[in-house]
């Protein structure tokens, strides 16, 4: 059906195929990426454990806010303390904002990030998840099923619509309690992931 759009839509709309989201309720796409020390980290190695996957770009103001003063300031550390694995993935392409080993090492030092930061400069892993924004968050349950995809919370840059809700925390709590995730998808907000063209 997309092809039918082609003759009538403005050219800019057709320049690229939109990134589409991985389906919640299906196996999370496996990946193997290197962390900032060069060590390979493979998602499937964590089967049996809940895994949070966070899309990251240290130059994005939403990421700067969330890690600098917002909800990601200590959330990963606290979550890891409960036995959950937290993987941060950066899909910025070479030449784009947030790309590069040194940039990410600097971010890790600035924000005291202790979980692995994985580099996905080809964007292949980001696109397999349909990661569109930073921060776009995913939760994988111990069976390897994607159980949450979407926003970190309902408060972009700390401005909540109504009572603040941290969707990722809620999903982790649901998995830990053996409940279905009550809110399995939300619309992610933030900067676009800086994929290569």
């Amino acid at each position, binding site marked *: *059906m997309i092809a*039918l*759009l082609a*003759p*009538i*839509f*403005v050219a*800019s*709309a*057709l*320049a*690229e*195929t*939109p*990134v589409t989201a991985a389906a919640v309720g299906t196996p999370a796409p496996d990946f193997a990426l290197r962390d900032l020390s060069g060590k390979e980290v493979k998602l499937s190695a964590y089967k049996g454990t809940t895994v949070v996957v966070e899309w990251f770009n*240290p*130059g*994005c*103001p*939403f990421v*700067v*806010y969330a890690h600098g003063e917002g909800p990601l300031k200590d959330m990963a550390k606290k979550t890891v303390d409960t036995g959950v694995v937290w993987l941060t993935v950066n899909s910025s392409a070479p030449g*784009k*904002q*947030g790309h*590069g080993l*040194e*940039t990410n*090492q*600097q*971010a890790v030092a*600035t924000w005291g990030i202790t979980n692995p930061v994985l580099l996905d400069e080809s964007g292949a892993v980001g*696109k397999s998840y349909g990661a*569109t*924004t930073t921060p776009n968050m995913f939760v994988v349950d111990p069976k390897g099923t994607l159980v949450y995809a979407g926003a970190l919370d309902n408060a*972009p*840059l700390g*401005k909540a619509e109504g009572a603040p809700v941290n969707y990722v925390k809620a999903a982790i709590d649901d998995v830990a309690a053996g409940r279905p995730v009550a809110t399995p998808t939300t*619309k*992610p*907000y*933030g*900067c*676009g*992931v*800086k*994929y*290569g*063209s």
Partner: protein
Amino acid sequence: MLLSCALALAADPPPPVKVAIVAPAEIVPGGTAPVAIVVSVPPGWHIYWENPGQSGLPTDVRLQAQGDLASAKGDRPRPGTPSVAAGPRFPTPIRFAADGLVNYGYEGDTAFLFDVSAPGNAPVTLDAAVSWLLCRDICVAGSGVAHATIAVLAAARAPDRSSDPVAPYVARLPAAFATSGGTVTRADGTLRLTLPGPGPFDLFPSIPLEGAWAPVVTTAADGSLLVESPLPAAPDGARLVLTRGAGASRQGYVLDLTEPRP
């Protein structure tokens, strides 16, 4: 060096964004007038529509009105105080596609419209506050304010409408779909919509169009746009903006997806 560039972004001088209120100079007592909050961004940058698309953030525009009762020179103010009756109404957006993401927003000068009512005889003081996410290949969050005052005329005098500064901005709002020459039907659980050509056409949902929402868009032999979609369980206020034409002749039309309720 590279790393300091990326992390120091917030400390760099942000690209200049201007916020201004464009309002009629005068309003009649008891009258209502449209007021535009104009946000101007530098070339190459854009801000976002109420549905920003796959990334970004809606531009947040607020307007407060206050009556300066102290200066109401002996005229007895009518009950009630000046108020912002409706808004913001977003102008017809444009589409951005980059890095595989589709976004909806604005370049250049963008006017967000409110209706302001002045029940009394006192001047109306307006305070606008806008916060935005400004993006090109990178994004910068920012905010700004603007202030203005509208005089309220003596009831006997008609306002000068020969030069309405707000009219050009009102023209940028999408018109009612009913004025487009198109048709819309809701039957058998399906929304069917036609819009006569010539195109090009585009469509912008005010809420994410996903899953069961995904419309099938085709063109008829006569060049009309045809849209078919399962009737969405649309939340209040959900709208579809369709555009026809290009450049200066591009016109937007807005269809309320929740009226009438099936």
